[in-house]
């Protein structure tokens, strides 16, 4: 059914931006065709490239240096050779096995995946309802959703800490449990907002066609709306995964007492406070934390940028 439909309407601002990577460059000062300016232009252009290359070097050198160190031995890490004399993955092996970063990596993968899954489902379901279904109080409730964006998460530290340690009514102890972390991250308001905005841009014809075919609301959501919302879902997937993967604050609050639940960022902090100068291992752990997100970015660049700018500009 989805294959019969025309391409997705790229209406939200972010979506347009996402495409800009492939289309001609944005408007800049027009200098071509003005007599006498071509020579100066060439020089200016060369300078721009040189500066750009220098700046991007500045952005890359720290990563390069940490990768290089992660492949060195400890004595070698004290020196300043650009490349390790005898590159080995020893530090990675040490970090993963002896210092338990393998476990932390899996914890991070698990939490980021589950949280992303819940966000995808709940944000799209809620976004669909707010965009399409009519029910009394819809606007007020949506305003409430937006209101959550104004509550800084630090303010929630003590209440959430207490709530998770003894959940009201049920008396669950969720502090130090994966469930506690997942529960407070079930769905983000930004994600819900993003989905609603995206659904608003989809013409109603599709749903009406589905309705005539006898589909109910959930089926319409699942079979018609979701397949049309690919880019928004992709943006949410990447943003949520990255956000959870990099989160330091809540794992610190929830998991600090239980080493087996550490995520990579928490593990890195604990490792560094205990073995302050074991640089190769610390750098290996950092690379383990950075690389998956870089890879994600390289593969899904346009959704990434779309998500970030729309979350920001509109949210």
């Amino acid at each position, binding site marked *: 059914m989805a294959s019969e439909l025309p391409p997705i309407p790229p209406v939200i601002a972010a979506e347009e931006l996402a495409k800009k990577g492939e289309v001609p460059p944005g408007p800049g000062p027009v200098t071509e065709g003005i007599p006498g300016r071509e020579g100066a232009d060439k020089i200016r252009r060369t300078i721009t490239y040189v500066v750009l290359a220098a700046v991007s070097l500045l952005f890359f050198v720290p990563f390069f240096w940490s990768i290089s160190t992660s492949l060195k031995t400890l004595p070698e890490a004290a020196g300043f050779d650009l490349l390790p004399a005898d590159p080995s993955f020893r530090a990675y092996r040490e970090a993963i096995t002896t210092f338990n970063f393998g476990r932390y990596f899996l914890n991070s993968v698990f939490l980021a995946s589950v949280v992303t899954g819940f966000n995808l489902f709940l944000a799209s379901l809620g976004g669909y309802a707010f965009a399409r279904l009519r029910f009394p109080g819809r606007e007020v409730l949506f305003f409430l959703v937006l209101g959550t964006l104004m509550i800084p998460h630090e303010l929630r530290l003590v209440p959430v800490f207490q709530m998770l340690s003894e959940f009201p009514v049920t008396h669950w102890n969720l*502090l130090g449990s994966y469930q506690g972390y997942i529960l407070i991250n079930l769905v983000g308001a930004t994600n819900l907002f993003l989905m609603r905005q995206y659904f608003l841009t989809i013409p109603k014809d599709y749903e009406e066609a589905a309705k005539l075919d006898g589909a109910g609301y959930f089926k319409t959501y699942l079979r018609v709306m979701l397949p049309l919302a690919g880019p928004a879902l992709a943006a949410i997937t990447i943003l949520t995964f990255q956000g959870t993967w990099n989160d330091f604050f809540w794992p610190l609050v929830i998991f600090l007492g239980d080493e087996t639940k550490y995520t990579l960022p928490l593990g890195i902090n604990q490792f560094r406070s205990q073995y302050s100068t074991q640089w190769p291992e610390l750098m290996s752990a950092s690379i383990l934390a950075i690389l998956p997100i870089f890879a994600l970015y390289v593969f899904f660049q346009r959704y990434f940028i779309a998500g970030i700018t729309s979350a920001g500009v509109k949210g």
Partner: protein
Amino acid sequence: MKRGNVSLKLAALVVVLMLAVSIGAGVSAGKRTKGQGPVAAKAPSGTVTLSGWSVGATEEKLLKQVISAFERSHPRIKVTYDAIPNYDQAMLAKFSARRPPDVFYLNSEKAPTWIKQGLILPLDSYVKKSKFAVAPFYPKLMTAFRANGKTYGFPKDWNPLVLQINTAMLAKAKAKPPTTWAQLKSVAQKLRSVVPDGRPLCLAAEWQRMMAFVYQNGGSVLQGKTPTFTSPKVRQAVEFYVGLQKSGLGNSPAKLGAGWCGEALGKEKAAIAFEGGWVYPYLPENFPKIKWKFFPMVKGKQAGTLAFTAAYSMGTHSKNKEAGWELIKYLTGRTGMKLWSSKGLVLPARSDVKVKPPGPSRTPLLNAAASARAWSWPSGFDKVWTVANNELGAVFEGKQTIPAMLKKINDEAKDALD
């Protein structure tokens, strides 16, 4: 009509599913923690959970030996021991969840705060019921765990600050161990040539060390409810301690290239340190070639030093209190205490326990009992010490003056005592 039903059902199904997942998660979490402390209301039996902060391998091994000795003498009780990293926060989480371990370490510094919060169980009724003798415990250590006339824990051990001196260096400099402030200066002067930086004293920029000198000067920072940081006796002592650094006789461990003074001693960056019994077995294990001994703390106007202690306590919401009390009774009792202090890691908190541990003579430590005061302060004082140590760091760096520091700490203490 039909389609509406289907979607309604689906929606309902989804909601139910999600709820079930969350509840299932929660319940399993709840169950797991509950499973750790089966309730045994009256008879002292079952499993007792025991928690403490992470300690070195030697100490952990010793504690496990003591625990198995307890289990042998109390066959109906099984002890589950956990060393918890990030102890304070982890315990806060457990207290908050109303699921503290049955028995746990209580640091004398944290004790007032935790007691005030109602987290710690008063042990008086248990003491009375089992006729546990309190008299053998050193009274100065006991005060750290008493509040409102109640006892909230029994000290598991203690450790005072004394001198550790590299005896080889001392011999090389042809000097004798110092016993007074004046001698400390002159001996340090002689030792200057035998250490790499020419600063033989390791001086931590911490009130947890400097306070010993305040006591030696007859000073005190708290008179009842009034902070007296700005009193002349305190100021003189601080001037003396800081003066050792300013005059080039000593330096902070960080500046000497060590994490703490024990390490500075081990790395032969310093010849004299003011630490406690905990330098053993650290020094022989990490720096076996160093020749060193314990010496009595120097005297000022009077003998004085600082003692650190921790207790075994139970929580208000501990599950297995009866069996927990049995464990505390054993660990802090004569037999348990003797076994626990036999290896020389700590000193017995009871005057009726005499041990002959391996390693250097502990006499200087044991003799400190008479003049030592426990590091124990009113609730809310944690913050005062954070500020105080920060200020002292600034004084060491030359960014703050001593009178200004004392004034600032005094104000902070006033606020804390309000």
